[in-house]
């Protein structure tokens, strides 16, 4: 007998996320094709630059993936806590893990005036979940559970891995911009003295730089878009896991209010971790559409709207 389920996936969200990833893939393919085309047209003189960029960029991405937990914990100034030190927090995590059938992540607490939480780590087994002490102080248990369920959904969706892979393209493009810039500065001068200027070396670097800038800009926007969709997906999965979308809504409102009250000087210190946070620490002008396309998280209004849908779905009779 097939059990009835009230947990249908959100097709709209899935479609938008698929489209975003498809576009990102398309940009990647176009980028590779352009570079290969450029190199075959102008000779392999620029192949070394591209090769170095891929190696350095790949190393960077793999490194940040492998050390993501350590880097994030250190940046946030967080310390791991044992069940004896934080029994309530561990109790909430334990229960959610048993509900979702997930291995238990390590649990850490960061001292920070910003109420927030993040989860990171290269796999579900190596995951670490961190909350700030002000989050624990400000939220009640239901709200805390909602936030932790959201973070555990990030772990289940492998968001750290997905976003690292998605960022790979942008990292390569950024490196190529830098390399071709220096290449033009120094490489151009060297050829002039040597007298073996083949005439093609200068344009190829300029074109490479231009292409890289365009690719970087487009992929940057797509990555931000993907990040926002994944936040919505985590909100949704988290609310379905606890069965309490309203508790998550109330946590979101409390956390966002808290962020607006804290002075910017403190907030900026937390900026590098933004993409992994429960709610972004830097809030630009929330209403303008420009800030929306650049931000890693959807607006509070958007998140509440999506959670309303979950609520309706769960309380549907029958």
């Amino acid at each position: 007998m097939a059990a009835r389920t009230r947990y249908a996936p959100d097709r709209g969200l899935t479609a938008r996320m698929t489209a975003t990833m498809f576009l990102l893939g398309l940009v990647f393919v176009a980028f590779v094709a352009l570079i290969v085309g450029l190199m075959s047209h102008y000779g392999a003189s620029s192949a070394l630059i591209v090769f170095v960029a891929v190696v350095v960029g790949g190393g960077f991405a793999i490194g940040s993936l492998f050390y993501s937990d350590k880097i994030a914990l250190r940046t946030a100034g967080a310390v791991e806590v044992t069940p004896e030190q934080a029994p309530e927090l561990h109790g909430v995590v334990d229960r959610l893990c048993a509900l979702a059938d997930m291995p238990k992540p390590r649990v850490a607490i960061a001292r920070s005036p910003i109420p927030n939480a993040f989860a990171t780590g290269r796999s579900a087994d190596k995951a670490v979940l961190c909350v700030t002490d002000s989050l624990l102080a400000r939220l009640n248990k239901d709200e805390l559970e909602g936030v932790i369920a959201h973070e555990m959904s990030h772990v289940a969706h492998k968001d750290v891995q997905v976003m690292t892979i998605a960022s790979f393209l942008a990292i390569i493009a950024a490196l190529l911009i830098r390399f071709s810039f220096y290449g033009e500065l120094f490489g151009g001068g060297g050829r002039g003295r040597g007298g073996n200027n083949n005439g093609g070396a200068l344009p190829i670097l300029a074109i490479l730089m231009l292409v890289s800038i365009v690719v970087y800009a487009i992929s940057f926007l797509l990555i931000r878009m993907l990040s926002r969709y994944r936040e919505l997906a985590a909100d949704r999965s988290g609310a379905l896991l606890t069965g309490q979308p309203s508790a998550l809504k109330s946590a979101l409102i409390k956390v966002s209010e808290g962020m607006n009250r804290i002075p910017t000087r403190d907030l900026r210190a937390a900026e590098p971790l933004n993409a992994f946070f429960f709610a972004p620490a830097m809030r630009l002008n929330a209403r303008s559409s420009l800030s929306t396309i650049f931000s890693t998280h959807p607006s509070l209004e958007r998140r509440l709207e999506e959670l309303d849908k979950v609520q309706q779905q769960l309380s549907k009779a029958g």
Partner: protein
Amino acid sequence: MGFLDTLLGRTKPVQPKLDDLFALPSAAITLEAGAGFTPTGSGSVCFRPVEGRSFADVQKDVTDLLDMSAGQEGALPVEVSKDDYGFTWVVDSRMSSEIDALVTDLHAVNSALVDNGFGPQLLCTLVAFRDAEERRLALIYLFKRGTFYPFAPLAGEKRDNALELQVKGAIGPDLKWEQDLGRWFPVWGAPGL
């Protein structure tokens, strides 16, 4: 969860496994023979309630159903309580000799939730035991994994790991044990224990 679901951020809620619960009565006999623990006759089902009307209706149906079946056999009616973490416990108390009936009752609660589409909300089922020295022990069934683990609380949120491992050894292969010790999570102050 499949690759595509991960990629698209779609978590499929985990459906519970109910059937392994019926291994409990025979395990209880082995436990009594091997370690001297007898069932107290009380057991409970723990789940995370869903906000809204439809879940409240299901919950009421379940407790009504149990009240009726318990009433017929002259046992105590069920109790429903909420713990500090917002989870609901349905406690069913029977005579200590009625472990078969107890497991049937608990299974009825579980299937009622599953049939109404709330299976993913089930957390665990707990059956309480005592020995001659009044030491407390619970066998806890994890729905999502279909596995059991022992939980022996001591005063002051400590647990008697030695006793737990002894119980696991005494029952042996009669129950499907949770092999990952990291998932033997404590349920302090669980109703019915």
